[in-house]
């Protein structure tokens, strides 16, 4: 199931070639699955196993979107979003994903979530959220 943040729509689009999607999930098979789906759609994607790994990345541009697992070892996805907003503004659109409904529900109303997906979700639901951000 997908959620849309209408406020983020209609932002100026950069070149598709520069656009990339960050996938942050500690579950390897979830990561590779999502990367494959993106690649199939012609979207560049980079995988990160933890929040700390994401913070260490050296990409020259910010991702156009972060698919972020809420529950991560160490720093949680929620904390990562807070930290990015505070220390590396502007905050890129975040799509929170989690296997746990209650975790997703608790991050409502913060304005940081471009969308929320409960695993397992339909690939089309993700692509629907990602494609407008490219």
């Amino acid at each position, binding site marked *: 199931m997908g959620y849309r943040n209408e406020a983020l729509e209609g932002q100026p689009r950069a070149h598709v070639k520069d656009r990339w999607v960050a996938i942050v999930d500690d*579950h390897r098979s*979830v990561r590779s*699955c999502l990367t*494959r*789906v993106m690649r199939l759609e012609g979207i560049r994607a980079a995988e990160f196993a933890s929040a700390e790994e994401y913070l260490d990345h050296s990409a020259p541009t910010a991702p156009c979107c972060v698919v972020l697992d809420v529950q991560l070892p160490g720093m949680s996805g929620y904390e990562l979003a807070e930290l990015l907003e505070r220390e590396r503004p502007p905050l890129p659109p975040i799509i929170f994903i989690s*296997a*746990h409904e209650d*975790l997703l529900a608790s991050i409502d109303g913060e304005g940081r979530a471009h969308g929320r997906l409960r695993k397992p*979700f339909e690939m089309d639901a993700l692509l629907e959220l990602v494609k407008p951000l490219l």
Partner: protein
Amino acid sequence: MSRSPGRAFILTTLVLALGAWVPPAAAQRTTRPTRVLVLYQQQAETQPMLEFAQRLRLTITKELGSPVEFYQETLDFDRFTGLEQSSPLGNYLNDKYRRFGIDVVVPVGGRALKFAVDQLGQVLPNVPIVFALCALPQTDPAAQPANVTGRIAPASRFAPTLEMARRLQPNAHRVVVVGGAGPADSTSVDAVLSAAATLGDDSLELAVLQGLPLDELLPRLRQIPPRSIVVFANYRMDGRGHAFEPLDIVASIAHATPAPMYTQLASYLGEGVVGGSVLRFDDEAVRTGRLVVRVLRRRPGERMPPAELIGNTFVADWRQLRRWELSEARLPPGTEVLFRDPTLWQRYRMVVLLTLGVMGGELLLIGSLLAERRRRKRAQLLAEEQQRRVDETRRQVAHMGRVALVGELAATMSHDLRQPLAAIRMNAEAGAKFVARDTGQFSDEEREICGEIFSEIVADDVLASDIITRVRALVRREALPQQPVDLNEVCRTSARVLHHDAQTRHAEITLALDPRLPPVTGDPVQLQQVVLNLVVNALDAASASPNPRVAISTVARGKEVEVAVRDNGPGLAEDVQNHLFESFFTTKPQGLGLGLPIVQSIIERHHGRVRAENAAEGGAIFRVTMPPAAWGSREEPSELSPKKAEPETPAVNEILR
């Protein structure tokens, strides 16, 4: 006093026997024993004299407190008349006792005293003499030498004896005096008559039956009118010149007399006489013995104590008082009543006492056995009850442990499996997408098969997800009992349940409980599970210490109730501290890694928190804080919906800090 025929050689025998006996030990002693020579005027083997001799010896021995030797001579002057003035007997005794130093001579009887003073003066010139059983006027104490003292009886006891009779028989109007024909008998009869005269009672008619032979006397006695006082003066000889031992006939005289008979001789008591003022031999023996001791203990040069006058001793025969229906209350004050028919108590006192004693002993034994039995039973019941409660707690905790374990396993599994199941499903769906997009590489049939494979994976995945979702819902729906729980009691129970475990590990569990601790609301069994779990962990940790200690404490702190379990083990390493409350994380070889997650799960359902920290002085402290009952009861109902739970990651982080 008394005379009996026969036994002519008794003196000789005694003398020979005494002569043959030389005390062997006496010669060797440096301080020789005190030597007492007793001279009996009459034969010494009559019952009253034997008793006198025995009591005299006993009194002197006991009261002197040092060794005493007794020597005894029976003079028997009544039968061996004429020996009283015999110098051969005196010489013989002088020879005999010259080798011994005699310390005191005790003549018994007036003629024995006279013999001692007259005949033994040569060998025992200044030896003190203490006489016994002497009477006025035959013995005049004032006429004795300076080394003589003793106890002297009044001339006649008939006056007080008659007084006693008058008291007992105030209605009597006649006094009958019975006496023999001998000279001593006449003296006694005269004494009675003069005593009667001193009564000064003119209403009393005096009659004398004197000198009659016994066979004539008895019929005459039977004619005496009932309201008479009969006085037995003495009867040593009858009118025909036959000598009698009065003791032998007094009973038949008393039996024949239809009125109460009185006498002044103690030895006639018990023979049918009512009583009288008498000389008590037993009493006199003791008093004479004491006088002897006083004489022996004189300081050098001290004078002999003066002679003592023997007082009145009234004696009555209880049986005769009954026989004549005489009132005991009328007896002179201080009268000794003899032959009192013993009451059941007196007669069977020993038997009764023994029986009572045995019965009492048995009762006591039975009582104490019963009490012991009851006490043991009670203690046993108490122990059983305690054991039962401990067992019950163990059982409940074990059951709860299993239930919680299953629940926690289910929760953990359903939580942890959700992630991989989601991944499987997403991958399967993505795979289906790829296959569907394929252009030409797969045949239609292959595409179809791959599509079926992926959709079956997805279908099974959905099925598995549904199952764990249902399990999770089932576990979460368990109701939490709502009742006040005293955490102090929970701590005490934990200490009790683990007492044995602690002992086997030589560990000490101490309790420091806040007496003002308010109760909390929840499930006592689950909370018991929490504290037990923490204490078991603490015991495990402390066992690394040479002196294992676990301290359980409670404290009411603001709006919180805290239970702290502290050990003196190695403390928590940092990496351990970060994973303490994760499922399947354990530092124990046999551990499941579910204890602390269960603790956390239970405490969170009770709206509390659990934290672990290292104590500054070493060891670990686990603190459980909960709201007290009043606070907790305002909170949400016990059943926790998934929405109710805080986000799990922040919660864990908070707990771990």
